[in-house]
C-alpha cells in the first residue's frame, strides 16, 4: 500500500438532492475504485457549496473565512486530487462555484490533478465545461484531466451501457474514463506537502536580496 491520498469533491448543486451531487458521487466512487485498484488508499472529503454559500459571500465582503469555511478551504488546498462539479447556469458555471474558487489563494491549486464535470437540463450546454470550467481551473494552474464529464438530465434516463443515438458513450463509460485519468495522475504523484508560510517564513536576508 502506498501513502493515503486526499480527494476533495466540490459540488455546487443547488437543490437537495441534486443531479450535480449524483454525478459527483458517481465520479467519487469511480475514482476511489480506480485508486484502490492501484493499491492507493484514499480519504474523501465532499464539499457541498450550498452549505457554505453565506460564509462564502461574507468572505468576499470581509476577507476572512468562518472557522467552518476555513476547514473546507484548508482541505481543498491540501488535496491530492479534486473533483469539481457544477450545474450550468446561463451558459457557464454557477456564481457559487466561481465564488468558491475566487476565495482560494493564488497558486494554491497549482499542479493539483482535477476532474471537471457539469450537469444541465439539456446536452446543448455541454461545451460550458470546455469554454468556462476548464479555463477557470487552468487559470488556477490545476491540472485538469482530458475527459470532462457532462451529465444532461436525459443521461440519467439512458439505458446503461448503450451509446446515445449520436454515438456518445454512455455516462457510466465517461465517468469511468475520467476517473481512470484522475486516479492515474493522483497515484503517480507523491502526497502533497502544503507549505505553511507562518511556520516557515522566507528569511529576511533573502527578502533583502529581492528573493521571495
Amino acid at each position, binding site marked *: 500500500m502506498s501513502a493515503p491520498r486526499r480527494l476533495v469533491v466540490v459540488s455546487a448543486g443547488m437543490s437537495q438532492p441534486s443531479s450535480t451531487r449524483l454525478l459527483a458521487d458517481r465520479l467519487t466512487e469511480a475514482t476511489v475504485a480506480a485508486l484502490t485498484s492501484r493499491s492507493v488508499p484514499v480519504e474523501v472529503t465532499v464539499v457541498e457549496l450550498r452549505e457554505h454559500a453565506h460564509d462564502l*459571500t461574507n468572505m468576499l465582503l470581509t*476577507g*476572512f473565512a*468562518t*472557522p467552518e469555511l476555513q476547514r473546507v478551504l484548508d482541505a481543498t488546498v491540501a488535496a491530492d486530487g479534486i473533483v469539481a462539479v457544477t450545474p450550468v447556469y446561463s451558459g457557464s458555471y454557477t456564481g457559487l462555484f466561481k465564488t468558491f474558487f475566487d476565495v482560494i489563494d493564488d497558486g494554491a491549486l497549482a499542479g493539483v490533478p482535477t476532474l471537471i464535470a457539469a450537469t444541465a437540463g439539456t446536452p446543448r450546454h455541454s461545451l460550458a465545461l470546455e469554454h468556462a470550467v476548464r479555463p477557470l481551473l487552468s487559470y488556477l494552474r490545476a491540472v485538469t484531466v482530458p475527459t470532462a464529464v457532462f451529465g444532461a438530465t436525459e443521461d440519467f434516463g439512458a439505458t446503461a451501457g448503450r451509446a446515445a443515438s449520436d454515438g456518445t458513450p454512455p455516462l457510466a463509460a465517461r465517468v469511468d474514463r475520467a476517473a481512470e485519468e484522475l486516479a492515474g495522475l493522483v497515484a503517480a504523484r507523491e502526497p502533497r506537502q502544503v507549505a505553511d*508560510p507562518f511556520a516557515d*517564513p522566507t528569511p529576511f536576508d533573502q*527578502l533583502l536580496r529581492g528573493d*521571495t
Partner: protein
Amino acid sequence: MSDQPASASTHPSQGAAPAPQMQFGVFTVSDLTQDPTTGRTPSEHERIRAAVAIAKKVEEVGLDVFALGEHHNPPFFSSSPTTTLAYVAAQTERLTLSTATTLITTNDPVKIAEDYAMLQHLSEGRMDLMMGRGNTGPVYPWFGQDIRNGIPLAVENYALLHRLWREDVVDWEGRFRTPLQSFTSTPRPLDGVPPFVWHGSIRSPEIAEQAAYYGDGFFHNNIFWPIHHTKQMVQLYRRRFEHYGHGSADQAIVGLGGQVFMRKSSQDAVREFRPYFDNAPVYGHGPSLEEFSEMTPLTVGSPQQVIDRYAAMRDHVGDYQRQLFLIDHAGLPLETVLEQIEILGTEVVPVLRKELAVGRPARVPDAPTHAARVEAAGGGRDATVYADADGVTGRAPAPVTR
C-alpha cells in the same frame, strides 16, 4: 551657524509620569463616512478638526497614544499625517503621536526620514510610527510604483530609512529610487535616537519577519480578523524576534487593534450601534453584528464586556505593549466618539491596566518611549551634523572628510 560647537541638548524630558507598561490609545483612518441615522456626511474641514479634538480628548482622559492613518484618495482626509500630528503635539503634553499607517511602499523613504525626524524634534520625542503598505491599488501608480512590488518596496525602502536615521552620511543604491551619494538626512534624530518603528501587517508573514529582523515592533491590525489568525502572525513575529537575537519571544514588542462601542447596558449599546454597523461601508451588508463580533475584536456592549474581552487578548498573543482602538468609525458623530473615549479612559482602561499588570513577567518590556530608548542608548546626545559650508552663505565647500 556653521562653526558652532555641538552643545548638549536641552529639551525637557518626556512627561513626569512613569512610562506605562502598556499603552492604550485610539487610531483613526480619517474617513468621511455618512452618519446613517441622519444621512449627514461631515466635510473634510469638520473631520480634520474632529481628529484634533479626538486626539486632545485621548490625552485628557488619560490614554497614551493617538495614531492617524495616511491615505491619498477620498473619502479620507489624511494625506499628510505629520502636519496634523505636529499640530496635535503642540497642543498636548503627554500624548504619543503615531501613524496607522505610514506608507513605506509609495513614500520616498528619504522624505519619511526627514518628516518624522522633524516631528520627533517638535514633539520632544512623543512620537513613533507604524509602517504599512496601503490598501488602495491605484495609490501605487499615483506615486510611480507598482502594487506587485508591494513587499519588495516595503523591504527596500525600510532598509534605507533604517540607515538614514542611524548613519550620518549614506551611500545607497537600490531597485526603486535614485541612488544616493554622501546624503545626510536632516534633522538628525532627537538625542541621536531614531523614532521607534512598528510594522503593521494583516496577512503578510514577510512583514512579521521584517519586524523581527530589525527588532522593531509588530502591530497586527486585527479589526477585521479572527483572533486565531492574529495569534498566528504574532507567534511568527515573536519566534523570529528571538531567532534574530533581540531577546526572548515574550520580549518582542506587540501591538493590537480593536474596536468597541459601549453604553451602560449592552442592549442600549447594540441598539444604538446597529444602524451604524449595518450601513457602514466597512461592516455593512455582510455578516450580522453578532457574527462579526464573534469573529473579530469588535465588542458592542457594556464597559465590563469590553474589559473582559480585551483582558483576554493576551491569552492569545502573550503580554503585549500597545492596544489601539478604532472609535470614530462607521459615521459615528464626533460627540458620540468623544463620549466613547471618555468611557474608555475613565471606566475601561484603568481596569485593563490593573488586570494586565497581574502576572505580567518582569522581563516583558514596557511600551517603547523615547525616554526609555534614550536611557537604553546610554543617554542622549546632540546628533546634529554641522556642515563646513553651504551654498547660501556662498562659502566654498570644504572637502568632505569622513
